[in-house]
């Protein structure tokens, strides 16, 4: 179990790391995009800490999932909102947990339907084993070693809490 204080610390570390990357690459006007729902909670805090100029973007990847024909449409789908053009822009993509990599693939497909970004940097609060695609995060809050039937879940938005649950 990771409580609020620890999560605040993780997010501050992530912000520091992102700031260092942006400075090293001389990127001034990055667009941060959070993936619904957990990724957006994390992104809101990172966005505040980094004091980014561009407003925060929101991505709901429901229309880009690769399991639509198996699980159908997500009834709680929300609109994606990208406040500025992604063309030639550096994107900071934020999600809560990186697991199979399929969500990130869907998010990148969706971003490319909005334009051609200059680059995409992936930041996740937590990562775990179980990748099914060649996708890795650039900035990671915490790594989780999990058993085959365990999952890590972020609850929120206030307070943010990471917990490890047994998969049914």
């Amino acid at each position: 179990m990771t409580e609020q204080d620890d999560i605040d610390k993780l997010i501050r570390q992530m912000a520091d790391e992102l700031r260092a990357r942006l400075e090293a690459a001389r990127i001034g006007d990055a667009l941060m995009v959070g993936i619904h729902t957990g990724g957006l909670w994390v992104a809101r805090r990172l966005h505040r800490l980094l004091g980014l100029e561009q407003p925060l973007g929101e991505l709901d990847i429901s229309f880009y999932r690769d399991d639509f024909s198996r699980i159908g449409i997500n009834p709680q789908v929300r609109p994606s909102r990208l406040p500025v053009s992604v063309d030639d822009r550096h994107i900071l993509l934020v999600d809560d947990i990186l697991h199979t990599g399929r969500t990130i693939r869907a998010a990148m497909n969706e971003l490319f339907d909005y334009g051609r970004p200059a680059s995409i940097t992936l930041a996740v609060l937590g990562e775990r084993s179980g990748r099914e695609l060649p996708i890795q995060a650039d900035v990671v809050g915490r790594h989780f070693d999990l058993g085959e039937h365990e999952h890590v879940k972020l609850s929120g938005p206030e307070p943010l809490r990471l917990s490890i649950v047994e998969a049914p």
Partner: protein
Amino acid sequence: MRRHSLQHDAEGRLRHLLTIEGLKRAQIVDILDTAESFISVSDQQVRKVPLLRGKTVVNLFFEASTRTLTTFELAAKRLSADVLKININTSATVKGESLLDMLHNLEAMQCDMFVVRHADSGAAHLIARHVAPHVSVINAGDGSHAHPTQALLDMFTIRRRKGEFAPLTVAIVGDIKHSRVARSQIHALTTLGVSELRVVAPKTLLPADVETLGVHVTHDLDEGLRDADVVIMLRLQKERMQGAMLPSEGEYFRTYGLTEERLARAKADAIVMHPGPINRGVEIASSVADGPQSVILEQVSNGIAVRMAVMSMVLGRAPREEGA
């Protein structure tokens, strides 16, 4: 055990969309919420999402239509489905092949959805009763019975402009009797629970059972418009003039046509809607149709998102068993 309706599957999910009747408020709200998310697809450079990739949608239009056919086609294409348009006048039905034979042939070609427009009431229901289990039917207008996606896009337009339905007074004006749009709108607005729903028409253009639909009836346009939040004008079908139901276009416009002066009786921020195509100077003055309170073109663009929502929800039902 209660038999589920033709348009729902055993789990209560929409399998076909044939009519607004029988839809619960939550189900209508679900469709409107999903449509809201599809609006953002038009902001994309690539105005397409991959949801229905590999699905085939067939537009079966037995009656002329431009807007409805085009927006259904665009909706399917923006969902990445393949779309066929069967031109009925030149197709096999005139060669004596029966409608159901034609449908079974299309099913054999692995089509997934039929979008049906037909001059006879009940046509979409008939087709829905006979299609294979994997095929869905969307009613794109049947006779004077129902036009559910039009009503849904109207509800969507009202909600985007006005927010909540509960406080609203809505007036539907014109040929209620022959209008499948009006019937579907009345069912949708009463299900969503508007404060007051008025229908305004001469006696000859009102259906006999109109009072049972939960509406206030008036024959006086000024009374019907008073303090309305939403004014929906219906197209006057010119052929109604011949059946001695109406005196003349000029007379109709003087009594029931929406002009700026008359619109002033509605609330100052009232919106004016029309399902199209408009008869300018018959049911609505050009100055109103093109005026600041008109949302007629918004209705058209909203139609794409709403039809995307309906198509993806109907085709996106999870199968009950893996590999079914």
